[in-house]
């Protein structure tokens, strides 16, 4: 499922109990991982991709993933690079050394946000309780990634599979985001 699509990076945090577990919907906390914010102009992308081990996507709202690597388009000069937690320093150093002389900015934001995995046939319904985006597969195919707003909190949504989404929020917003997701999902338990 999702972990394959996301380069094996977005996986449920084994130490956490599910926030919600229904047959049609589950909400799970994702395990920590290394996140880097990479900013650069187009000329530096090739070198950065080589150093990272994965091309950085240039199509808006798209993502590339390979084993243990994912690169998410966040803006025309902004990418989020994901790697296993323990590879943070190695990835950081590799990109920095490959890009010396190329103007760029690489910043560790691994701890800035947290992720929950929302999956199941009701996942789109649930996201639409707070996000005003058309999540039909035509408009938001698998692999699409975007920042948006969930009720009053800024979030990032990344479609890992047809019915599986990573929802990332800055750490202090996660109680709000996951709390409202769980509350809104409650009606599925109603008789």
């Amino acid at each position, binding site marked *: 499922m999702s972990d394959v699509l996301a380069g094996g990076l977005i996986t449920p945090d084994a130490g956490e109990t599910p926030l919600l577990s229904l047959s049609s919907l589950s909400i799970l906390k994702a395990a920590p991982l290394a996140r880097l914010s990479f900013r650069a102009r187009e000329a530096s992308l090739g070198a950065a991709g080589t150093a990272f081990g994965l091309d950085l996507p240039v199509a*808006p*709202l798209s993502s590339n993933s390979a084993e243990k690597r994912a690169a998410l388009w966040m*803006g025309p000069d902004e990418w989020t690079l994901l790697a296993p937690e323990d590879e943070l320093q190695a990835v950081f150093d590799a990109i920095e050394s490959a890009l010396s002389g190329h103007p760029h900015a690489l910043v560790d934001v691994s701890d800035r946000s947290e992720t929950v995995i929302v999956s199941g046939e009701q996942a789109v319904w649930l996201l639409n309780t707070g996000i*005003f985006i058309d999540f039909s597969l035509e408009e938001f195919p698998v692999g699409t990634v975007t920042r948006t707003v969930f009720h009053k909190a800024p979030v990032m949504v990344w479609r890992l599979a047809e019915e599986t989404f990573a929802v990332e929020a800055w750490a202090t917003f996660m109680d709000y985001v996951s709390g409202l997701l769980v509350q809104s999902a409650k009606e599925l338990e109603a008789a």
Partner: protein
Amino acid sequence: MLLIYCPYCQVKRAETEFHCGGEAHIARPSDPSKTTDEDWVDFLYTRSNIKGVYAERWRHIHGCGRFFNAVRDTVSDDFLKFYKAGEPMPDLNALAAEAGK
């Protein structure tokens, strides 16, 4: 809630993802020290605030974060054009005529 096209993300999104930045194409003087007091006050505060078709700035603050410009009819809220920051201001009269405004 307006529907706004981001020329960088190339999608239409709800207004809640955006922040309006007021009138567009008001450039900060490159050497402010050579600007008269009157011109500086104009730069700071004077805006056309027209009823009709005008160009305004938007930022896709909860998206790609980019500033871009839009031509909007302030009467109907219809957007006539979206374009990237740095691109020249389109001919507003021509756009208005084309849209039958």
